[in-house]
């Protein structure tokens, strides 16, 4: 036992660090340093033609307290929330069907195919499907269901639709992995003990694939929350999101500190989201051990 602990400590202290330094260096240069720059910039004064003046100031954060920005923040949250909900609701049955399918590898392949194409091109594909002279409109008009073009593009619905499409594979994969590991005889046990089909899904399947669902939520919500290309290309005035504010502040208004401050909001909110999920699952485990100890 002692010897085992010894080897463990040895691994932890020397070899583990040795092996992880390239990764550590990579993250430091391309992740920590840029983040530090953004934090720094958010506390500086804006330069006249972009860039920053090296004077400490809370100006950027003061500027954020503007009702217009508040509306954009709430809208961003709403779009992210709806898109994530729809994505998860589609990913759950998809993952289940894949896990129980005999042609699992093939279905997995189908889910991964979109990754082969650049996301920008896929968004343009949607534009040509939803556009005024796009696939859907010309089909509807040819069949004679509508006489005029339906405005499918440049609104919130289009943003939600394309966001769901973009992040569905990221949601399906962790959910599929979790369901694939799930022991399906548990569903039979639940049925045997008096549960309906739907009931056994909710009471037995869902709690046991919780970690996969949480991962899917994180993988979906966070990128949509910070999205910029999708609202830019398929959205309209009603779907201007935080990501668009940041880009406009950098490119048009040239208020870099404000852009940095908005980036901070996205980072902080995402970090809190991840931490909250991690703690909620940890807390649950803690509660149960406590109860056990009490009895």
């Amino acid at each position, binding site marked *: 036992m002692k010897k085992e602990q010894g080897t463990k400590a040895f691994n932890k202290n020397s070899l583990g660090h040795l092996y992880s330094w390239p990764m550590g260096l990579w993250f430091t240069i391309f992740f920590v340093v840029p983040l530090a720059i953004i934090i720094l910039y958010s506390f500086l004064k804006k330069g006249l033609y972009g860039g920053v003046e090296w004077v400490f100031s809370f100006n950027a954060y003061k500027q954020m307290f503007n009702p217009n920005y508040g509306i954009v923040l709430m809208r961003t949250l709403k779009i992210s929330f709806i898109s994530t909900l729809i994505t998860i609701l589609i990913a759950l049955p998809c993952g289940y069907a894949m896990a129980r399918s005999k042609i699992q590898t093939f279905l997995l392949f189908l889910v991964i195919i979109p990754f082969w194409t650049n996301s920008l091109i896929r968004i343009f594909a949607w534009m040509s499907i939803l556009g005024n002279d796009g696939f859907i409109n010309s089909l509807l008009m040819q069949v004679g269901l509508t006489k005029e073009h339906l405005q499918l593009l440049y609104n919130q619905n289009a943003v939600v639709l394309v966001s769901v499409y973009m992040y569905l594979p990221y949601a399906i994969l962790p959910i599929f992995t979790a369901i694939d590991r799930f*022991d399906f*005889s*548990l569903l*039979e*046990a*639940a*049925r*045997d*003990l*008096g*549960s*309906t089909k739907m*009931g056994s899904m909710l*009471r*037995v399947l869902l*709690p*046991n694939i*919780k970690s996969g669902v949480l991962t899917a939520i994180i993988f979906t919500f966070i990128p949509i929350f910070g999205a910029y290309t999708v609202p830019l290309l398929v959205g309209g005035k009603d779907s201007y999101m935080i990501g668009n504010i940041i880009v406009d502040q950098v490119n048009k208004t040239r208020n870099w500190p404000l852009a940095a401050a908005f980036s901070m909001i996205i980072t902080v909110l995402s970090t809190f989201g991840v931490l909250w999920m991690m703690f909620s699952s940890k807390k649950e485990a803690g509660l*149960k051990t406590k*109860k*056990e100890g009490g*009895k």
Partner: protein
Amino acid sequence: MNGCTVSIKNVSKTFGSFQALDEVGFTIEKGEFFSLLGPSGCGKTTLLRIIAGFEFPDEGTVLFDDKNVIPIPPNKRESNTVFQNYALFPHLSIYENIAFPLRLKKMGKTEIDQRVEKYLNMVQLNAHAYKKPNQLSGGQRQRVAIARALINEPKVLLLDEPLSALDAKLRSNLLIELDNLHDKIGITFIYVTHDQAEALSVSDRIAVMNQGKVLQIGTPYEIYESPATEFVAEFIGETNSLDAVVKECTPIHDKDGQIDEYMCSLEVKELGTTIKITDYDKTAIGQEVCVTIRPEKVRITLEPPQSTKKDLNVLTGVVEEPVYSGFQSKFYVRLDSGSLFKIYKQHSNYLEDGPEIEWKDRVYVSFSPSDGYVVEEIDR
């Protein structure tokens, strides 16, 4: 609690081109401990799953008492299952696992508490109520699975190889517990196993199955002592099987003059001689049959056997492989005719053992006509 009869009527089931069950039909009595015994792939688990409601038969019906249960989904059937790998819910505590069926019924909190307590007591797991399944040993998990299956007070308990994942010693202990439990609650138990020793020791009756068919149904004694087919003889315990042709079959009368059984002379080609075996039924002369002789019923001696029994069959051979296995010794004897014969000898100090038999000893192998059985149905 009350059990019910389970009638299986002409049940057939195919998976693709595989015939899992072929017109199976029998009735399990109320409160019986009934075993489905057979090698893997014989259809026993499929039959159990049909009774539980997880599979539908292609043909035939299953009745609980007089009620056809085929249209009833598993959650509404009055049967509960103990699964092979326990199938405990890993996200729930032991308490919640057992309370699961009661919560579904929206039972009151105090009533759930009482019921769960009672069943935890029954399987002696009160101390572990708030543990998770993965914190328990295999035997404890098995007991949780049994408590969970019983808490709904079903009329039929279905057990799908419930002990197969446990080690031998634990298995025999749990088997006794299971038997006691059955005596106490008195509902119908249907027990699926491939282990003949398990089936023999706890069952009221056993159905031996192979390739989707029921070969024989009977008490453990009947199945062991008078197997209906060669497969049953070979599957239940060890045996020496010999192909033979009936040469003569004469009735033996008991003291009232009634025909008790028949003495058959059988020509065994591989032995090059004729042996005598008694049989309950008359067998046609010239019929090809199979003779099975249990190894523990055969005597092995260094000297020619001196028995008062008439018609004693005596063969000679050389010990090819003596195997000492604690409570008994197994001898594999190469008979003079060239075939191999198994003999098990119990070690006992009460009866005189005689001189020890060793490797390459020349021995006499003897058995009386009543120690073998004539099996008319040859599976090969």
